[in-house]
Structure formats: C-alpha cells, structure tokens
C-alpha cells in the first residue's frame, strides 16, 4: 500500500513536470507491476484537464483513452505471463 501511494505521488509529479512520454512509460510500469491500477484512469483525466481542451484531438480525451488502452493491455499482458 505504501509503495502504491509513493508511486502515485511520483506519477502525479511526472504529470506536472515531465514530458508526456515519461508519464506514459511510468503509467505502463504501474499498470503492469501493481494490482489493478485503476488510478491510471484518474491520471489520464488529469492530463486531459491540464493540457487538453474539447476542441483538440479526440475531443480532448487523449490521456483518458490512452490510460484505458494501457490498463487493458497491461491486464492482458499480466494474464499472458502468469
């Protein structure tokens, strides 16, 4: 639980201070290593709220859609390797 909270804080900092691809790599790691990493969806929404707008690509939902894709891909990958 403690590790999870620390990872969430690191990812939160990454959303504000690092390029989007760093966030994507960290989020993928979290989705793969932590048990159902639902927080990834909240981070996707945060990215869309911080940087997106409704008039932008995918209606400003790029972060959330990417978060769902990472979440689902990681779930299948976890099943495949276990």
């Amino acid at each position, binding site marked *: 639980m403690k590790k999870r909270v620390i990872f969430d804080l690191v990812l939160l900092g990454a959303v504000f201070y690092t390029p*989007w691809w760093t966030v994507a790599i960290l989020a993928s790691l979290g989705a793969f290593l932590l048990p159902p990493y639902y927080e990834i969806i909240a981070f996707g929404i945060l990215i869309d709220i911080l940087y997106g707008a409704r008039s932008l690509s995918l209606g400003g*939902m790029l972060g959330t859609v990417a978060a769902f894709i990472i979440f689902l891909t990681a779930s299948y990958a976890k099943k495949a390797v276990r």
Partner: protein
Amino acid sequence: MIHRRDNSNNKSISGKNITLAVLVAVSFFILLYAPLRNTITQTVYVIAPTVWGFGDRVTDARDSFFANFRNRDFLVKENEMLLIEVDRMEAQVLDRNLLAEKVTKLEEALGRVRSDNRVVADVVAGPGRSPYDTLVIDAGAEEGINIGDVVVYSGSSIIGEIVETAPASSKVKLYSSPGEEQFVIVGQRNLPVVALGRGMGNFEAKVPQDSVVAVGDSIVSVKGDLIFGTVSSIEEKPAEPFKRLFFRAPFNITEIRSVEVIADKHF
C-alpha cells in the same frame, strides 16, 4: 475444489469488469459533459499554476547551484560570446525599430493604423509536457483573453490560438499540432498553400511542381503581417505533380518562455 476456484476467479474477473465499466462511464461523463469538465478545469487551475511555479523555482535553484561548479574559463568564454551576440542583436533591433517606424508612418499615411491590444503572458507548461502540443500560459479571462485569440512569439511570429480560458490562465493550441491545417502565403510570389502541422513547430505543405519556391523563403499568415516560419527543405520527385515543402518556426518551440496574446484578433 477446482470448480470452486474457477467460480471465485470468474467472480473476481466480473467484479473487475464492472469496476472498469463504471470507470469508463464516469470518465467519459466528466470529459464529455461540458459544464462538469469546465468546473473541474477551473478548480484544477486554481492549484496548477502554483504547482508549476514551484517546479520552476526548484529548477532555477538547481541551475544556480550547479553554475557555481562550472569551469571559470568556460564561463569567461561564454560571457565573451554572449556579449558579441548582444551587440549583434542590438544592431538588428535598431534596424528593426527603424523599419517599424517606417511601416507605422506608411500605415498612418494610408489611414490603416494597427491598434493591437496585446497581453504578455508567461508560459507555465510547454508543448514538451503536453501530449496535445499545447501551451499553458498565465493570463486568462481576467486579462481580457478570449477563445480564438491569436498568440504570437517575439512580436511577429504566429504560433497558435487560445482554445480554453480560466480566470488566470489559458491553453494555447499550436498551429503546428499534428493534423492542424492553416492557410498561409509562401515566398515573394505570394503563393497560397495549406500548411499541415507536424508537431513541435514543424509544418508541411504541397505546392505545384512548377512553383518557384526556394529554401529560406518566408511563410506568412494570409493577412501578411505575421510570420509562420521559413522553408527549411523541399522534396520533389519528377513523377509527382506536387513538391513538398517542409518549414518550421524560426525558434525552438520548447524554449518559449513568454508569448503575446492579441486580444480580439482571430485568424
């Protein structure tokens, strides 16, 4: 025994699926229902500029700390180079001021005086951080900025337009965002083309094969008073009816620290 384990697995999977379905519904409702999205955006933007400001202060402190350890000779050389550069730029500014004065006089003579209402804003989050190729600036509705206002850098380089405003901040969509299309004028022969954004200040355009365009030609806005960039390369194949122009903004878009918003000017 095995049967029971399967049942618990199935229950767990269906529980996860339900949770995921609820999350999908809630997420899309938040993002698609405009009043809710706007409320959350306004709330987040009460805190976000402070968080970004804190990060900038930490970066500045780190840079000044490490600057103490830099080689003295290197600093002296760097200082000399910077002084030369400052001299060169001062001369350019002088030249530019004279030109601006001439343009103003001509406009006055023609009765076409421009009266831009410009708001200077600092960039709090650049396109490197954003997956959308957007900038976040620290001026918003309180400064009279509206959606659609044109954003320029360094006085005359057009970079994008406002797509969302909060009381004290705004989001700028860069014209170089992938897939964005803009009408522009190329070169001295005023060739009208559609510029397609390629991200991070890069554009691409197609012109007929026999068009007279050269590397270094300026790309300006349709009204002709704002610069998009200069042609950096041309790709032509004799078999194709078009040649492809690649051009970019005359500065590194990730290094922009402040911009000007031309209030009530729409492109």
